[in-house]
Each structure stands twice: as structure tokens, then as C-alpha cells.
């Protein structure tokens, strides 16, 4: 780049002296309003820095005299939404659950609010799609099989108090004893009988032997026909749903050293309205059961 300015003969305007392979630049002055606009942006910038969070310091940025923050804005938004939903929330916390689905708008509110509650609090174990994690013993909430009952009341109770936890005195509590004192053949026979209950492949002779053992040892909780008892959370052994596997080995393992799921109580943490909301959501996932009248 040469450093010689000259007057461009065509336009009569001075060049900047910059030369790129013969292409020169005219030194046309900018309009003065442009300069004032530029000063204006500087003034704007100074005002902005004073009013809003701006300079990054070691742990946080300067606050700005308006005290604005994006977190504060979110908090205000949440408060605003909570306020506008206050009436619905109040109704939800007090409504008779048996008639919730007759109140369309309140039911819709409960289900959509419950979805957020579920994603925030429940999906860590039961999965974002509520399909559970069979390998870890987290039950699938989409199917029509319920250990502790699938009516809206039942679900809400389970959510409120949890299962087999130490924190809540009303938590659903029952444990299957370990049948490790039985002979190995007896274990095998019971497992074969259990498989026979749901028509899984089994040795008929061994299963028949197990049937007697089942009546002696298991039917007090699981029932003579193996259909379980929701009062004590004993699973139905005669259906197609197996939380901890349906193989001979899996059933034997559960007999010798039973594993039990634990669920924390959510009543205090979520509050009654959110407990009911998430219960309504789970109830509407496809497996919810109707309240039996007079129950």
C-alpha cells in the first residue's frame, strides 16, 4: 500500500492513498449525522452499563442500578404464572379425586401440570416416558398392572407416602421374606409352578410338585391362584408382566434373596396439589383404573 494521497481526476475527491492492485479508495467524508449516531451509541452503552449487569468480575458481574437479572425475570414469570393458576391449584388440592375427571378444565390442568412434576421428580427412576427400568426394578407406569393399586386415590397415596421408606410412617410397607431355607429342588419346583401360572414353558411334573409348596409358602400373600394382593403389594404372578424377569433363574433368585423397590414420600416436598397433579398424569398414561364405587 502506497502512502500517497492524490486527487482522483474523475470525481475530484481525494484518495486515501491505499492502493490494492490499482484499486484505490476515495476519501469520501461520512455524513455528520452518522458521527452523531456513533456518539449516541456510546452514550447508550454507558447508560446500559450503569443500569444493567455488565462488567464481569471474579465471581459475578456488576449488578447494575436497576437490579435486573435474568434469574429474577424467570422468578417473576413463575410467580406470575403461579398467581394466575392459584385458583386452579387450590381447587385441585381440595377436590374429591373420585370426581376429578368430571371437571374437564381442572383435569386438563392437573394432567399437564403433572407432566412437568413427573419430568422433574419421577423420570429419574421411572424414565421420561414412564416405562420404568425393568433391570433396576423401577415399575412401568404405562401398563394395566399395579402393585399397590391403579385408581387415582391409590396412585396419589403411593406418591404422597412412598414405598418402604423410613421417612414416612404411612409409607406402603411389606417385604417378601427370603426363602433361602428351602431346599434347592423346592425352589426350582416353586419357580416352575410360578411359570406355569402364566403359561410359560415349564416342566409339568416339577411344577405340580411346586404347586403344593406354593400353597404352603406363597399363597398367603400371592393368593392360591397367584394373582397377588395389592393390600401388601404382592405382585400378580399369573399375568404377562414381570418386574424382575420371568425366567426360571430370575424367579429362583427372587425367591432366595428378594429385592424390593423403595420410593421416597413426595407429599411434603411437592405439596398436595402437585401430588394430585402427578397422580392424574400417571393415571392418564393408559393404565389408570376406575374408582370402584363404594370403595
Amino acid at each position, binding site marked *: 500500500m502506497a502512502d500517497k*494521497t*492524490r*486527487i482522483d481526476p474523475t470525481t475530484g475527491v*481525494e484518495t486515501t492513498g491505499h492502493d490494492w492492485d490499482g484499486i484505490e479508495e476515495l*476519501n469520501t*467524508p*461520512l*455524513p*455528520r*449525522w*452518522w*458521527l452523531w449516531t456513533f456518539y449516541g451509541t456510546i452514550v447508550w452503552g454507558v447508560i446500559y452499563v450503569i443500569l444493567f449487569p455488565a462488567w464481569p468480575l471474579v465471581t459475578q458481574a456488576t449488578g447494575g442500578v436497576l437490579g435486573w437479572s435474568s434469574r429474577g425475570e424467570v422468578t417473576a414469570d413463575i410467580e406470575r404464572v403461579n398467581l394466575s393458576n392459584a385458583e386452579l391449584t387450590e381447587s385441585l388440592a381440595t377436590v374429591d379425586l373420585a370426581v376429578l*375427571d368430571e371437571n374437564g378444565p381442572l*383435569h386438563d390442568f392437573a394432567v399437564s401440570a403433572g407432566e412437568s412434576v413427573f419430568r422433574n421428580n419421577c423420570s429419574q427412576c421411572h*424414565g*421420561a*416416558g414412564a*416405562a420404568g427400568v425393568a433391570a433396576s426394578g423401577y415399575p*412401568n407406569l*404405562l*401398563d*394395566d*398392572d399395579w402393585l399397590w393399586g391403579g385408581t387415582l386415590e391409590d396412585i396419589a397415596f403411593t406418591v404422597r407416602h412412598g414405598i418402604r421408606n423410613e421417612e414416612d410412617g404411612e409409607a406402603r410397607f411389606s417385604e417378601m421374606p427370603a426363602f433361602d431355607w428351602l431346599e434347592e429342588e423346592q425352589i426350582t419346583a416353586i419357580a416352575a409352578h410360578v411359570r406355569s401360572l402364566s403359561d410359560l414353558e415349564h416342566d409339568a411334573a416339577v411344577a405340580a410338585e411346586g404347586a403344593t409348596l406354593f400353597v404352603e409358602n406363597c399363597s398367603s400373600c400371592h393368593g392360591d391362584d397367584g394373582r397377588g394382593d395389592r393390600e401388601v403389594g404382592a405382585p*400378580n404372578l399369573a*399375568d*404377562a*408382566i414381570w418386574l424382575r424377569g420371568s425366567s426360571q433363574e430370575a424367579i429362583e433368585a427372587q425367591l432366595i434373596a428378594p429385592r424390593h423397590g423403595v420410593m421416597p414420600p413426595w407429599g411434603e416436598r411437592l405439596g398436595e396439589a402437585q401430588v394430585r397433579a402427578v397422580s392424574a398424569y400417571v393415571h*392418564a398414561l*393408559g393404565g389408570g383404573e376406575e374408582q370402584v364405587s363404594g370403595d
Partner: protein
Amino acid sequence: MNDNPPLFAPTEPIFPRRVSGFYRTLKWWILFATLGIYYLTPWIRWDRGPNLPDQAVLVDLANRRFYFFWIEIWPHEFYFVAGLLIMAGLGLFLFTSALGRVWCGYTCPQTVWTDLFFAVERWIEGDRNARIRLWNAPWDTRKASLRLTKWAVWLLIAICTGGAWVFYFADAPTLLRQLVAFEAPFVAYATIGVLTATTFILGGFLREQVCIYMCPWPRIQAAMVDPGTLTVGYREWRGEPRGKGNAKRAAVAEDVDSQGARVRYGAALDKDHAAPRISREGETLGDCIDCMACVNVCPMGIDIREGQQMECITCALCIDACDDVMAKIGRPRGLIDYLALEDTPPTVPAPEGWQPTAAWRHVLRPRTIVYTLAWAAIGVALVVALFVRPEIDVTVAPVRNPTFVTLSDGSIRNAYDLRLRNKHAEPRAFHVALSADTVLRIALEGEDDLVVDVPASATVRQRIYVTARPQDPAAAVDHTDLRLWIEDLTSGERAHADTIFNGRESNDD
């Protein structure tokens, strides 16, 4: 040479003189038409029934609808807007390749509002000379009152302009009542405020600065015009050398012959005005008398005789101004005219019988025809799409987390989210069903039957369940094709959506 050239220069004020003529009249008509459309459109009513707004043109942001007379655009039909934007782009290419910056000169909002503001300025402060005097005059009562009156009228126009904009986004009569009663949403006042300020400043003060410094189109158009494009230009070969002529004309044919060049050209153009002009020094002059009429009327403050310039918006007012002068001095019109740069005669004087290419041949060229065809093709496609689009629609999204659920009896159940769309202006009930040849069963979440009520002009999401019994083949295999039908129980219209049913095998993926 100045050692320190100024980095910044004050803007030269421009005082365009009043002009009348064909293009000025045309521009008035376009100004009234475009401003009329802009200000009045939101007030046109259009009856769509009790559940929908009755405003002919309405952008309903809250409900995500765009209403344009009998057309209603939903968000999923945004391709109509995209198509219109492509047509607008191609239209701009077409007009620019045929007629240069005709958009800038006649219909650009900046041009139209500036033109309106100039008219106000001329009405209050007088024509060019009066305005120059006023500009140079010291501030006194008269100057202040004239300036304040002008600014007040400008501000009124600006408020109306910003005000009209918001009426496109809400029911106009309701919003007007709210605005007057100070009950309108803040965003309405803010929008009016911003648009009032931009109209006032851009139309009243920045004017040509917008075109020169802010708008990208002057740069783009340089790539869009070609030597065959009709644009506003000066016939240099006819006008030069310019100068004030001797009042006496050399009218005799012999004299004309002795002058050679000019005569032949003039004769070719117009036999009645063949006589050349002669300067006091005896030099033969061109048609330009250097009266500066073209410069004085120019809203951009340029001299068109210097050739094509980025500043020129082709408003054509210099054509009117020059034609006026040509008529007065008895020369043919069109010294400044719509012309193509390639239409310069090969020699000056022009060879015997030379004629510029006809205007229609500049407009009708392969390039403009290709643009027109592309433009029309998209237009036809949009119109066809507009007429074949259904009034009801269904989309289905299988729930994939999990892909299927095993029920107590060993049945396999899939869940789907249906979106049922009802474009009718009244609520409709839709019956949901599977195709008749399947053994799979369908159920709706939260409903005892298979009927979903969809409100007027709304979309409803409905979770549905499809179940295969354990013995059904669909329960076992990887997946089975599935077709869902919806039927509008009022009109009997049907629509369908295809999806798949996942069986137990799909778990092995």
C-alpha cells in the same frame, strides 16, 4: 491538496422544486393508491361466521393465524408466505432487469412517505426558492412558526402511519377504542411510538440519506441491471455540448447543411425541430441548455447528466422537468428519458436511419421472460395449493418412549398422539377409526367412545391406544403398517394418516 481532508461532512440540504408532468402525475396516483391501501386495509370487514374475526386482513399472532379475505393461513402453511416472499423477490428481479430501480422510484415506502412529506413541506414553506430563503434566514417568529407547523403535520402523518400498522394485528375498531381510552396493550403503544419516530425522522429529515447510507438495494441493483435495462438517463450524445444558446435560431436549411453533424441527427429525430442551436461564440450546441431544472427537482440532489449514479432512485421527475424545458425551447422531448445504456448511437452524429431499440424490446427479453415464467410458476403452484388444501387434517406421531407396552394379558399396546385439525368456522366432531381390514383395536385416552370434539378453527391433540391381542401376528412381529382414519361427522369428509404398529420383535433393535 488539503493535508487534512474532513472525516465528516454536514449533509447538504436538498430543496426539490415542484414539477408537473406525466411521471409526476403517475407518482401521485401511485402515492394515493399505496397509502390508501396501507391506511384503509385494516378497516375492511369480512364475515367469517361467529367464531372467527371479521377483519379482512389480520395477522393474529396470539392464535397463530393469518387472515386475508377468504384465505386463512395456519402456521403449518407458512410455505404460502415463503412462496409469496420468493415471488416478491423474483418480481423485484423482473422489474429491476426491465425497468431498473422502478421499485425505489415509485413504490418504496421511503420514497412514498418522503414524497408526501415534501408535499407538506412545499405546501407550508413554499417552493424551492422560498425554502432556500427560509433555510438561510435567521430564526425568527415566522421561521419558527412555519417549521413548527410543518413538523406538527409531519408528526400527525407519522402517528397515523405507526397507528395504522398495529391495526393489522388486532381487531381495528376494538383496538382504536382501547388506544383512545388508554386501555390498549403496552406493545401497541410501543409499536406506534417506534414507527412514529422512524416515519418522522426517516421521512422528514434523513430522506435521501436512507437510500444512500442505509439501504442495501442501491448496491444490489448494480448487479441486477444490464445495458439493456430501461432506466432514467441523460442522452449525452444529444445534449452535449451544453450551454446557453443564441436566441436567434439558424432556421435555414442550407445553414443547417453546413453544420453537418447536428443537422442529420436532428433530422432523424424530428424533422420539425431540425434547427441546431448556436452559442454566442458560434459553436454548435446540443439540446441541453444547462438550465439545472433536472437538478433542482431531484429529491436525491444529484445531476443525472453525470451518468448512472448510486444515489439515483429513478423517480423520473427530472424527465418531467426536462421535457417541460424542451417544449419551451422547441426541441423534442426525451433529452432525459427512460433509456437503455446500450442505445447510444455508434457515432455522433448518429448514422443515417439509426433508431434506438423499441422500449418493449427492452422489457420483453429472454431474461425478463425467464423471471416472469419462474414468478408465474410459483404463483400458479401457490394458487393450486390454496385450492386443494383440506379443511380437516390429521397427523399421527407414534409414542416412541417406549415403543410398546405389554399388558397383563400379554397384549401389546402402542400409543400415538393424534393432532386433529378443524379449519371450519364451527366446532366439529371427528370419529377416529383404524382401517377396516385390521384386527387391532383402538381406544381414546379419557374417552369412552371414538369421537373427539374439535373446536372451531383449532387443533386438538388426542392420545390414542392401539392394542394387539397376544395371538395377533402384529403383537409378535417387528412392525405392522397401520392406517388411521378420521371422519368429520358433520360433513362426512374423511382424512387419513399412516403410521406403524410396533410388536415385541421391535425390542430387539
